[in-house]
């Protein structure tokens, strides 16, 4: 908990497609930061959020946080590949993108062939000096029991790079996830965390 002292404000943007559970993921992340003893502010988009449009939630934490929003992010967690591309634009050199790269939901304009789904996330990230944590969150969610848990599987992956204690994440899942769907989400979280922790260990 003492880790909170003198840490600057960190901005995490959670990005995805309406209906993917961005609000729930943001809520778990906020609870985790709070359990870690940090001040947290969050900004969400409601109303249209379940209707398949682009959705962004911002969570900011640190010793002292004033504004709930920021145009720049330190971390972007994207539950869909195109939204990951969108998220890159919020990240600067040294930023981290945790992206569900296997989840591709083409928007209407792409389906109608008016626009192109972007290619090559890795190259663009490299050009921007952004570190990518690529996760097959959909497979992990399925393994946990429901494809709908992409959001929490991705959050599990992000937990391996975000600076909170494991116990804070556990407490956050307990607080923010409704009892009815908690077990499956705890499994998805663990699988996501394991996948990235392995990767980080191998790389190290």
């Amino acid at each position, binding site marked *: 908990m003492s880790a909170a002292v003198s840490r600057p404000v960190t901005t995490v943007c959670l990005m995805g*497609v*309406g*209906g993917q559970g961005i609000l729930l993921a943001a809520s778990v992340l906020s609870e985790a930061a709070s359990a870690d003893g940090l001040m947290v502010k969050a900004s969400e988009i*409601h*109303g*249209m959020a*379940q*209707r*398949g*449009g*682009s959705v962004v939630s911002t969570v900011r934490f640190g010793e002292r946080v004033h504004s709930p929003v920021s145009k720049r992010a330190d971390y972007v967690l994207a539950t869909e590949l*195109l*939204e990951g*591309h*969108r998220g890159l*634009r919020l990240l600067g050199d040294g930023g981290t993108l945790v992206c569900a790269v296997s989840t591709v*939901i*083409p*928007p*209407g*304009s*792409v*389906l*109608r*062939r008016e*626009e*192109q*789904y*972007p290619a090559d996330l890795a190259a663009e990230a490299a050009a921007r000096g952004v570190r990518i944590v690529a996760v097959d969150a959909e497979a992990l969610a399925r393994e946990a*029991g*429901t*494809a709908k848990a992409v959001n929490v599987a991705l959050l599990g992956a992000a937990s391996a790079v975000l600076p909170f204690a494991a116990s804070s994440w556990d407490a956050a899942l307990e607080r923010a996830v409704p009892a009815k769907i908690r077990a499956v989400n705890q499994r998805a979280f663990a699988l996501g965390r394991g996948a990235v922790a392995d990767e980080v260990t191998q790389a190290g």
Partner: protein
Amino acid sequence: MLSNRILSCSDELLQDSKRTNDRPDGKGAVNRAGMDTLFLMGNEAIGYGAVRAGAGFACAYPGTPSTEILETAATLEGIRAEWCVNEKVALETAVGACRAGVRSIVSMKHVGLNVAADPLLTLTETGVNAGLVIVSADDPSMASSQNEQDSRNYARFAKIPMLEPSDSQEAYDFVAEAFALSEEFDTPVLLRSSTKLSHGRGQVLQRERVEPPQVEYVKDITKHLMVPQWARLRTRFMLERLVRLRERAEESPLNVIEPGTVDFGIITSGVAYQYVKEAFPDVWVLKLGMSWPHPWRKIAEFSGQVSRLAVVEELDPIIEETVRMLGLPVIGKAAIPADGELDQDMVCEALAPYLDAPAPERRQPVFPPAQRLRPPAQAEDLPVRLPVLCPGCRHRSVFTALKRQKLAAHGDIGCYMLGADPPLDALDSSLCMGASIGMMAGFNEALGRKASAAVIGDSTFFHSGITGLISAAYNEAEGLVLILDNRTTAMTGHQGNPGSGVRPDMTEGPSIDIQALCDGVNVRCTTIDAKDYGAIVEAIKTEVATPGLGVIVAEAPCALLVREKSGTVLVDDERCNLCGLCLAIGCPSIVPEEDTVRITDSCTGCGLCVEVCKRGALTLEPTPVTGGVR
């Protein structure tokens, strides 16, 4: 330096009556065009003025002191006049009529403008088509009202122009000015009256009828359908329009400087102008006939003409605040009462002590700098992802069926606005909660046929669609109202409403039956299952062919609440020729491939795509009931 006043109405009137006085029938003088000079109440003058201005549609809810405006219009040729159930519906109905291409005027008392504020504050973004004039009659001193309100606040709030006549002749003349302004600037225009104008009488010299320009209705959702992406652009239009309107106010012949012979100036508007002229015939006067937005340079110029400046206005210190904002010393509500009606004695008494008081030190006006607008959003190099109707939303059937008819479709607030997006493209407009039915009524009445339909959700219908329906029924409007009943307030997160009967604590109260409600107000109503596409197509076809007003209630629960996968759609790649019929329903679960379509996991098996496919390339395989997680 000084503006020449346009030939004063009263001067012209005097000349005319000298020339042709005393007709044997005692009906008063006849002017050069052979038209009667009438002795009219301000409200009657507005009614006559509307017809003279070429208005073809008038509506209102009665309220003292505004009532006689519509009553007068109803007695005149060439204009359809009707009462609506309230001021909100009246404004929405007038919006529909002006969209259809007919100059329209809607009148109400000041408190009625509160009721109409919801459509007004978005109408200022969409603008009009043919001109639209809103008359609000204030009642200072509350001769017949529960409160005092200064309607000028709404002009400022809505960022629209206001004209303020000061006598019956101006009431008559300003209506045509208001319509011209409305069309030139694509804005609703407020015309403010007050009790003494509305219920005072004076001679009115009739003028040549104005032939309004022919205006066609053109579908343009970027202008008429105020979802966030378009409303953001229209907000910018509205703010830029306000700047142009201020420039117009600087030059408008309605804003007149009348020179005086004593070193004292008064800025005034509306009926207060008459009290000023009677109390102080020798002072300089700046009369603001166009009283919003204020002409800053003209006010500063006027201030420079005199050593001492006062503002005389009934109710709120609206002009006074502008003068003070310009940094100019002024006598305002410190002398003139802020409540109740004024009269010449009150004005005389209030300002007399200041006439010989030492002049304040002269100051240079300080003009506000131009407002900064947000820079236009840069188009992103990534595909946009707009909200869409959910996979499995059975109300998609209604939009698909509606598109087969050649009808304009007035939409409403909530999920069903998403029917406007490509490829559905099924809606023309959306203004505010409950506006669709009133707009449909006005649109169809203006064109004299069933030219448009209204599309509204169940919760929005309960919010304020019911009043629109009753108004349309009362006025025998042609129309087709589609109520898409998903038994919840879906867009905000599935709250209860009187249809579902669900309360915030999730207990169930009584449920209101929309079919029974329509039966109760004697409106033809058919309730159908939104899952039955064939029945929807038939019902809409039948309604369009049947004269009068009809309602179709399409029932299907919100797909997000049901969340069931009732089947799997299989694609026969041999039969599919990628004709696009299934893609046109706008379902995000259907993805075009090279020469066939693919159905994604998000498909709920609703089967609409199977029904629209003409080649039998799609089949629905029902899911056996398992009760498992999908």
